[in-house]
């Protein structure tokens, strides 16, 4: 087990290293941050000064080596735009994104699992058909469009919910969270729903597919033949089996939700990491882009590890030591 973990950690470090090289070269290829950040009043001397101030006057490999040697000490550089350590910026923005992503995942499971179970158990009923049709809508509509529709209907027309922003926050563990205040929660409803829409559909479909398959399995037939109560059959035998794909996908989706909350965050002016990264890309703020991606990679690796570990718990046929 510990050998397995160690190996995964070494792999993770390699992945992060590869990532940092790709991002460094990639951002370099896109454009010149100084061109974007410099003021229109600047003359050539000021331009040269700015390039030197940001350390961009050195060859790329030298910049990269400097970055690496600092990174080993936990310093991923300072934002070109904000003049603050990149990790600090990400730390400031992380709670907003995390609570949004967890809120969305929570919603997806809360809504998706029961609906999927229902649709899978009564696949030919009208209710099941309605659920499946709804789930198709869920991933057919572009997120940004649904987001604006939500704002139009619930904030502008009906006035039930605040349109944008994070609202009141409360401090917990040294960070500011919205879900701890009434006002913050009200602000969170629409963005979380917007972000969850796709995942709700996904969970519904995976659950339904899983239920339908499992119900036909011999061991379920056997359990039913043995006279076990439907609750027990579904609750224990079926449920345990369908959890594998659901756990995989929800796990994977949590990471991508965090990474891809860019659109929802920009529609709802939600000041999270997704907003930070898209703004940083727009001005080629390389230290923030690199630091953000490194954190995301790390998070993904952890999530994947957890999913794999859960796999082995849920399905003994999958063994960790792949030989």
């Amino acid at each position, binding site marked *: 087990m510990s050998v397995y973990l160690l190996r995964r950690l070494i792999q993770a470090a390699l992945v992060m290293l590869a990532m940092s090289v790709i991002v460094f070269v990639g951002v370099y290829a896109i454009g010149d941050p100084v061109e974007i950040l410099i*003021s229109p009043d600047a003359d050539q001397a*000021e331009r040269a000064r*700015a390039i030197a101030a940001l350390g961009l006057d050195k060859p790329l490999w030298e910049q990269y080596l400097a970055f690496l040697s600092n990174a080993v000490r936990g310093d991923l550089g300072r934002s070109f735009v*904000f003049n603050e350590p990149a990790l600090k910026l990400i730390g400031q923005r992380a709670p907003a994104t995390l609570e949004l992503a967890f809120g969305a995942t929570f919603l997806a499971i809360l809504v998706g699992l029961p609906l999927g179970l229902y649709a899978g158990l009564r696949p030919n009923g009208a209710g099941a058909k309605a659920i499946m049709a709804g789930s198709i809508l869920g991933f057919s509509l572009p997120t940004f469009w649904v987001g604006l529709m939500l*704002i*139009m209907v619930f904030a502008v027309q009906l006035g039930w919910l605040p349109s944008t922003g994070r609202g009141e926050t409360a401090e917990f563990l040294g960070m500011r969270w919205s879900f701890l205040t009434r006002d913050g929660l009200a602000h969170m409803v629409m963005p979380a729903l917007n972000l969850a829409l796709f995942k709700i559909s996904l969970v519904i479909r995976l659950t339904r597919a899983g239920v339908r398959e499992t119900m036909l399995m011999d061991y379920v037939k056997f359990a039913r033949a043995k006279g076990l109560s439907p609750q027990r059959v579904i609750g224990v035998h079926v449920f345990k089996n369908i959890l594998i794909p659901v756990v995989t996908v929800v796990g994977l989706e949590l990471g991508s939700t965090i990474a891809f909350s860019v659109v929802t965050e920009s529609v709802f*002016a939600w000041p999270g990491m997704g907003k930070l990264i898209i703004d940083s890309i727009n001005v080629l703020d390389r230290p923030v882009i690199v630091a953000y991606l490194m954190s995301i990679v790390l998070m993904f690796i952890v999530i994947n590890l957890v999913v794999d570990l859960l796999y082995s718990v849920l399905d003994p046929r999958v063994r960790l030591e792949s030989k």
Partner: protein
Amino acid sequence: MKKLLLGATVALAAIIGGPAAGWAQTLTMAVGAPVTSLDPHYHQLSPNNAVADMIFDKLVNTDAQARNIPGLATEWHVVGPTTWEFKLRPNVRFQNGNAFTAEDVAFTLARLPNVPNSPASYAVYAKPITRVEIVDSLTIRFHTAQPYPLLPLDMTNVRILDKETAENATTEDFNALRAAVGTGPYRAVSYRNGDRIEFVRNDAYWGPKPAYERVNYRMITNDASRTAALLAGDVDFIDQVPTTDLAKLRNDQRIALSETVGLRLVFLGLDHLRGANENSPFITDNDGKPLGRNPLRDVRVRRALSMAVDRQAIVDRLMEGAATPAGQFLPPGVTGHVPDVQPTRYDPEGAKRLLAEAGYPNGFRIQLNGPNDRYINDGRIIQAIGQTWTRIGVRTAVEGQTWAVFVGRAARQEFSAHLIGWGSNPDGSHPLRNILATVNAEKGWGASNRGRYSNPEVDRLLEASLTELDEEKRQKLVLDAERIAAEDVAVIPIHIQTNTWAMRRGVRHEARSDELSRAQDVRPAAP
């Protein structure tokens, strides 16, 4: 202590004003561009300047139409060919109680070039000054190497810090509010990166008292969301109103608008770099083969292309009226506006004739590049220009890119024709020096001359204007240079943007040509 004081103020306000008056005392503004720092000398950026204007003052302030007015200096004048003297305003105190003196001004000017990591520093404004001389605590002199007429204009960009507070302060200290202490009408009490800044009124402010006691300054960068937030009543005031929403908002009884002609010109830069007998990168003949010459070096072709832009249609149909067709860099009413240069009229027939005269009776092919996320409707404008260019026989392909990619390519002269904008200082020498002057790193000229236009006569007039202290003579030199460049179609001006703000009825705003959204310009409407 500060927190305690604030708490006490808030409590006091609640007791005196009562809950009913309380909410009206807070103004919630939403701006479309993120503020990146509270350090007023870190990054030259309009949103940063707007917020800095609320916390700090400058020696010379500007009014809504970008004219110089007294700020922390009450008067200024030339005392020698290379010396400016500024008289400072007496009895001004910083928000921490410190008195404002000439020492603070000297300290501020010394700090400008020394802000670490600054990507767009304010050092250019300190650069012409060779020596700062403190005459007495309320008089200061600036010595320059050459006569320098634009010094007061430069001072409108320099926000004055308290020496005691800001000595050795880093940008982070400003963002953490420790160093964000100015003489301005508002004091920042919280700063959440990318989200909001909260202000309380500086009741000891020397100037007109701002109307709102508290200001919640939010950043909502998505256009539609910003409008929606206003319509939903979540914010009182928004800036950068999307042109697509203007018509609706104008008819909405709950909403009021404020607008004024801005200082930002949208224009087309042309390839002057390639010689008359060289190929321009995105120009071919009608079969897609290299042309063997650069038609843009012929003034008749440039004029024809300018005549084939339907400026009025772009302003009416795409900008919803929120722009003014332009033939030059600055709008009427601003120093540097050339009165006798008019926007080119749309004349496709005349354009065809000119093209034929220049030897292109069947036109040629060109690609028009532009950003699609930088200026208002930029992607739409290049398509509209492509339509009318194609109609005169210049078959136009249009490519819109994100600014991050576009601007680097433009700076490397990769384009034949490109759309770009210029947010001017309200002085004609500014675009002349940066965009039209021959590139010269030593003088610092032509830093944004992406088409590499070069005209010795323009350079000569500009050179003369930069050291001319007689304002009338200087104006004439600038206007002459601008007129020559306009007649030569150095660039193709399209329009000057109108700055628009929208607010709920009951709120009034003085629109500013410099685009800054500041709380002190907002008041409750008279009942």
